[in-house]
């Protein structure tokens, strides 16, 4: 285990993280140093008939003594891609092929605003919550497919669009 430390933005508390390479499981985990392992069951059942979810975030636990940390599992789609996950200035870790990045954070310590970067794809800004354990996949979009995304703006035609090109001999004398 390699201990790292950094300061959060605006000096909002100290984060000490360790990076654990779990080769056997194909998992990269980023955890709070000295944080106890979490065993919090995931709660928050969804309403009946709800559509399949791209994300899974637990409801606040009814249990009066929840674990002090939460476990956040991040993958990418397609899962064959490799991606790096950044939290502000800090590189939190890598999502390898078929291997999620696992974070541990203090429970209810506020959200993590993350950026997921993968070569050839547009960067994705996403958010992880610390209410409870969660697991989610971040869809990556190749740069050349950005026109498939909500918010893509059709290009305006150039000002002379539709006007036939001038004949070479049509110039004024």
């Amino acid at each position, binding site marked *: 285990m390699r201990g790292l430390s*950094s300061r959060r*933005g605006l000096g909002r508390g100290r984060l000490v993280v360790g990076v654990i390479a779990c080769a056997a499981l194909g998992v990269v985990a980023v955890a709070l140093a000295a944080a106890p392992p979490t065993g919090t069951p995931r709660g928050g059942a969804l309403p009946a008939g709800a559509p399949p979810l791209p994300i899974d975030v637990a*409801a606040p*636990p009814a249990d009066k003594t929840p674990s002090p940390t939460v476990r956040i599992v991040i993958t990418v789609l397609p899962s064959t891609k490799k991606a790096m996950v950044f939290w502000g200035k800090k590189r939190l870790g890598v999502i390898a092929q078929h291997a999620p990045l696992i974070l541990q954070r203090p429970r209810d310590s*506020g959200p993590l605003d993350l950026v997921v970067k993968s070569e050839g794809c547009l960067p994705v800004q996403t958010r992880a919550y610390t209410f409870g354990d969660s697991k989610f996949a971040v869809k990556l979009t190749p740069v050349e497919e950005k026109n498939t995304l909500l*918010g893509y703006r059709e290009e305006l035609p150039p000002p002379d669009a539709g006007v036939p090109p001038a004949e070479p001999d049509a110039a004024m004398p």
Partner: protein
Amino acid sequence: MKPRPDLPADQRALYVGETPPGGQPTERWIDAGAAEAVGYTLVDLSDDWTPYIFAEQTDAGGQPLNNRYRRIFLGLANDQLDEDGEPLPPGTKNYLELYGIFPSLSVLRARFLADELHPCVDQESADALDAVETVTYVAPADLKKDERHLSRIRAELEDARRKFHAATLDDLAVRQPALAAKVKLIEKRAAEKPAMTAVEKRLTCEGLLGSGKNHHQAGVYDDAMRLAVRSFQRKHMIYEANFLRRKTVEALSRSLLDNDYDALVRALRERVVSAAAILEDGSASKTRNLVDDYTKTALDQMGLSNAAAALAFFKRHGADDLKRLRVAVKLPPRPDYYGPEMDLSIVVDRGDVWYDLPFDDKGHYKPQPRKKYPSLTLYDKVGGKQVALARWRTTIGGWRADQASNGYEYFRYKGSDVGPRVIRHVVSGPVWIAPTSTPIRSLVKGKLVNGKWMGIVNYDELGPGFLSAYGLIAGYFVVPGQNGHNDFDNGVRAHGSSDYLSIYSSNGYSHGCHRLPNHLAIRLYSFILKHRHLRVAGDQPMGFSRQFLWKNTVYEMRIPSRGYLYELDPPLPVNVLEGNIMGDQKKPVLGYVPEPWNKYPPGPPPPPPEGADSKAGGGGGD
């Protein structure tokens, strides 16, 4: 009642007795339960107090139903957390009364004790501020132009003074009434200079000016000054634009402790309203203002009649006391129509309504004046007669920018539905799921994340939070489903709003919803929930995510919960009155209308999306 100093904090209440002349009030701890049994009301002054909508609840089996936002609400009220629930940087203050979150008593105590040591007032500044009602705003870029304009008027008046042999400018104004307005202008602007200096001095002393990143240039209403004024207005709950207008200048001229006392009264008012479960604030009937009457009664009984008494109270009661402190007060009896199951209903009157486009075909703005503004009234049916308990200004929908499927913005009329509805669901800490037609530019904001300034999804606007498009609480208007069908939800809600100026603006419109200032929305729904049969459904987890593109970055909106649900059973009747249709257009325009100043791809605009989500809601609010 018998003193019970032996009781633990959660079983006792403070009883404040007579104040001997020149002395401190006599106080004693009494049994809280016994006090309630003989007609006392317990006003909760604890630091962990929330309004009813965020109170701890349990299900039918007694299991706790946690509210995700309660922790953040308490952290904000106690100056401990920011809007995301992260620790507040040391020394930072949350001034959130305008957003419905009043400071805890511990925060106010610290403010009183600090301000006693640094009063921030001097006679010269007080005189300078007393001499003006407002201070004229001159944009920094217009300073030279403004000075030239004033110099010309001064020269003109000086010439006239000599010509008409007037001793002074005041004399000139009497002799030549045609010049009186110019004399008044010059005198007003002259008085504003020392007033501006006094404002700078005061804001600096209060720690609101000179501590930020923006440099302030003396005498100039620059960005640093605007931000300082905005903080001051937030600190003192002043509903004004960020300029030195009348209420702001009045508050600047008062002593810090007097302003602190006003803040204490405002905070206690919400706690008294909550404890007594009342709503009548004089807005529907001037003769029925229980909110002010009960607050005054409580303040008198607590011996908190002025700033000095409040300061003494906070010196007697330290931070430990304020962790859990309830005060027993005897309030006047509530009106006979009160009960656990009141026959309540809401009427929204849309007031004067314009369907016409607000601009002509050249893009020039066309004014659409309104004499009658929209209002929301809560009624109670008493003996067959509707009694109005509270009536507040609200908003209706109007012409708003909408983003079409081609990525361009168009105008679209987003009106407020008319006719009978019900509120079945009330959601605290609601989340607004931005429809796909929301202008993308409003869905991204800048934030310092772990030492790096970056763009993130604008969760402030989505919620939960005081800046959410739905504010801190929302009631969902639906047409009840018949014959086994679901309710029809067209996306209209009556909810709190952080966009408080829009509610009182002559040009303020929503996207169809009926906005209320957050603190009034909290009072309204707390009152309804306490006086109607309900089921606490609790947190509504959801796994929603949506990606969108903005400037070559994909933003992923991830929403873990819709909020905390209360289900009214039976639902609350609502009626939305059509109002007075003004102008030529007598029906709402359907479809998109190109903005005259915008460029678009060739062809007609795409059709607007269907569905409830697209009808109400949108960037910049609801």
